[in-house]
């Protein structure tokens, strides 16, 4: 065996080992948080499949990097390396394999996932969501129940729910990590998202059950989330019957401030203090006068 051939075989073995280790890690580790929706299964499948595809691809580059660093490292180059300017077969194979991989990724999990997620479902319940700086208003139009800034959102397990999502001011986004799907809430536009719930869950035990605003919407963005509880149908019915009006809980009461004029700093102070609960500091005050005194600001807090 020539040395060149030996090098090729060695790097091939290294590639196979790296790939095997990587695939073993991908298949034995579950990185995904709790999953509670049917459509989200496609997301998790797609992410896992993409991890599986990624491993051998990354292993090619890593194997060459590691092998060349170990095998051909010099402290001072006394001579030039071999003048290999190209290798027709290798380059062409590289090109066509990458075309094939890109096509594969596009077809599966890409297209197959999109079609599976778009499958028509019979709608059991309609929930209207309206993003408002910085909370969610919820309505159940079929039941005639409207909730301004509720303390939690309770949903029945085993049903298919159509969320009609919009915004009253700036762009927000609907995201319940345990449901996987995400949909922007855009003023002047109604977007629908259909989700079939398969698992019970409660924000109190698992923060994946929260309706989190996922599009930067101003000061209150980080804490603009609504706890979600997925329960049995009869428990949901009870909740809906009792929760006709706006609930309020632990400092989340924002009903007074839905008409915030963002350009007025005084209003901003009020919202931050009442809703954010992130410090009684009047953090916003400093925006008006001087500037970036973050260190000074930190001393206060």
């Amino acid at each position, binding site marked *: 065996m020539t040395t060149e051939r030996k090098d090729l075989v060695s790097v091939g073995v290294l590639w196979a080992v790296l790939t095997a280790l990587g695939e073993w890690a991908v298949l034995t580790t579950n*990185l995904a*948080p709790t999953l509670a929706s049917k459509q989200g299964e496609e997301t998790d499948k*797609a*992410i896992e499949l993409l991890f599986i595809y*990624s491993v051998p691809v990354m292993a090619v*580059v*890593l194997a*060459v*990097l590691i092998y060349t660093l170990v095998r051909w490292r010099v*402290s001072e180059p006394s*001579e*030039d*390396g*071999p*003048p*290999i300017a*190209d*290798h027709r077969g*290798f380059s062409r194979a*590289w*090109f066509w394999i*990458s075309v094939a991989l890109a096509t594969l*990724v596009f077809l599966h*999990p*890409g297209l197959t*996932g*999109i079609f599976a997620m778009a499958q028509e479902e019979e709608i059991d319940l309609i929930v209207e969501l309206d993003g408002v700086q910085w909370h969610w208003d919820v309505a159940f139009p079929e039941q005639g129940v409207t909730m301004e800034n509720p303390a939690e959102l309770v949903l029945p397990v085993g049903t298919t729910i159509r969320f009609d999502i919009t915004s009253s*001011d700036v*762009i927000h986004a609907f*995201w319940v*990590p345990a449901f996987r*799907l995400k*949909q922007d809430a*855009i*003023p*002047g536009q109604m977007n*629908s998202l259909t989700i079939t719930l398969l698992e019970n869950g409660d924000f109190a035990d698992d*923060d*994946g059950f*929260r309706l989190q605003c*996922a599009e*930067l*919407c*101003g*000061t*209150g*963005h*980080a804490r603009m989330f609504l706890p979600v509880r997925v329960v049995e149908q009869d428990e949901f019915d009870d909740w809906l019957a009792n929760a006709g009006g706006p609930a309020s809980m632990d400092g989340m009461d924002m009903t007074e401030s839905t008409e915030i004029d963002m*350009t007025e700093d005084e209003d901003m102070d009020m919202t*931050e203090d009442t809703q*954010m609960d*992130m*410090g009684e500091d009047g*953090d916003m005050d400093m*925006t*008006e006068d*001087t500037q970036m005194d*973050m260190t000074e*600001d*930190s001393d206060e807090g």
Partner: protein
Amino acid sequence: MATTTDAPDDAPAIGSRGLPLAFRGALWAGIGFLAGALLTMAIRSLIGLSAMSLEPVVVVGYVFSLLAWFLGVGAWETWGKGWLGRPTVAYSPSGWRRYFGFNMDHKVIGIQYAVFFILLFLIAGLMAMFMRAELIETGRTIFGPASYNRVMSLHGIIMVLVAVTAVSGAFGNYIMPLQIGAKDMAFPRLNALSFWFWPPVAALLIGSQFVGGWDTGWTGYVPLAEVNRPGQLFYALAFITAGLSSIVAAVNFVTTAVKMRAPGLTWNRLPIFTWSILFTAILSLIFTQAIAVALSMTIFDRVAGGAFFDPVLGGIPVLYQHIFWFYSHPAVYVMVLPSLGAMLEILPPFTRKPLFGYKWAVGGIIGISVLSAVVWAHHMYTVNADSVSNIGFMFTTEAISVPTGLIFLAAVGTLWRGRLWLKTPMLFALAVIFNFLIGGVTGVFLSDVPADVQLQDTFWVVAHFHYTIVGAGIFGLFASIYYWFPKMTGRLLNERLGKIHFWIMFLGFNLTFLPMFWLGLNGMNRRVADYQPNLESVNRFVSLAGFFLGISFIFFVWNAIVSWRNGEPAGDNPWGARTLEWMTTSPPPELNFDGEPEVIGDPYGFGSEQPAHATVTGGNGGTA
């Protein structure tokens, strides 16, 4: 060929005595602002509006002050007078003064860009330290959410501008004309103009903080950007100004690369770094206008009662995102292409091998550039979840992995059986390969619609774009600095400090950003001052790793200052490279070559009996 000005040699020069011209520029800019502001107030009261309205006054005042700034910093004597038929004069002070006025030497401009953008990088890096300090635990740590959002926004825009500009501004300017054997850029005045746009950009971004800053991140999405404080207007003006600089610079780069190549420098012999600068410039030239459109529309809405994006008046908020990303996706290739080009430029001398698959690599650069035009809406999969166009954008986005793969083909092929000489520039180039591999592969997850609906707007995205833009773009910037610093200053950077910088930065970077993929998968959305308690331990780790990453730049700054003054003399060609920039003195003379360069062979003909890449003939004694 004329030097940098048409003035006769004995014409009076400016800027050699007294305060540097930049001070006069600042003074004139102030006067210009007042003139514009007063004019606006006068017109407003004439047509029956209240005279004092901050935003219209600022917009008009700024336009006036920008013009006055250019004239004051030296464009008046070196350029403006010529329009009036009067003789122009030279700007040619020596020593440190040459960097503080309207200097047209591409080598001076390259250093102006390098120093200016490293300063901006350090400032925005400090912002990141504050952000990670806030995120080290849940709840309020050092500042509240309002300040967090402002600091995050400022970090974002400054870093984006650094990433877009640093490598092409510094090394595109300094090195590219040398690599093609030119005496200067095609349009020296435009070149000076493109640099002097930047101090106003920095002034606006810092000034924005005096009027409340803004909190939309660097993306400035509407309607949030239309209801925000006046700081948002400063952001928009700054971004438009930066865009003007990019366009002016791009015209110059394209013209220079096409028209100013030395005899014999055919397209087949063009160094790969010059290829990457050429296509970066083409992207800037075509797409930067879109960002000016999107932000001008925002300004119209804010200042002049427009309703492009106001849904109540029939505007469409999503329209902004389309125009914004039509620029900003190509812009990410503006950020990484020069660094990828630099990485491929560095591999041959440090492996002592030809660049593998040169034509494939050029094809990769061109392919990325072309496809970058048709992928913008992959940032918007969640705008309308059942949109058919998502399928199209998923296809084009995944297609980009093919030309990107060709860059890896060239890198891997060049490494194979090379003589790996692990000097600091080479370490950074290898880190570019490693980081960009992770950045590229994790991008495929985001291109996939079913996966993206979970990952969009989470820390997965934060990790992914830092792996591409910092991992490839900024590591490529440092690879370029360590590689070309000897040419620019005549001195080598200290190797030991360079290696300390590299290892802290490389480890710190990966320890900071790798766990962010996990955070994203586990429900941490991005741009948040606070998060759920179960993410705290990983966030604490990320913050500590981030501080470690921050420390690395102390070693760099120290190294740069010490080595610039007392570093080991580099000689003409410390790396034994073959391209033309190494066939002149370090630093090069005013007209770059002591003689006439002529290209006669391959730029990367290592290990073969091939002739040299070029010869320089006719000078006083010639060069290597």
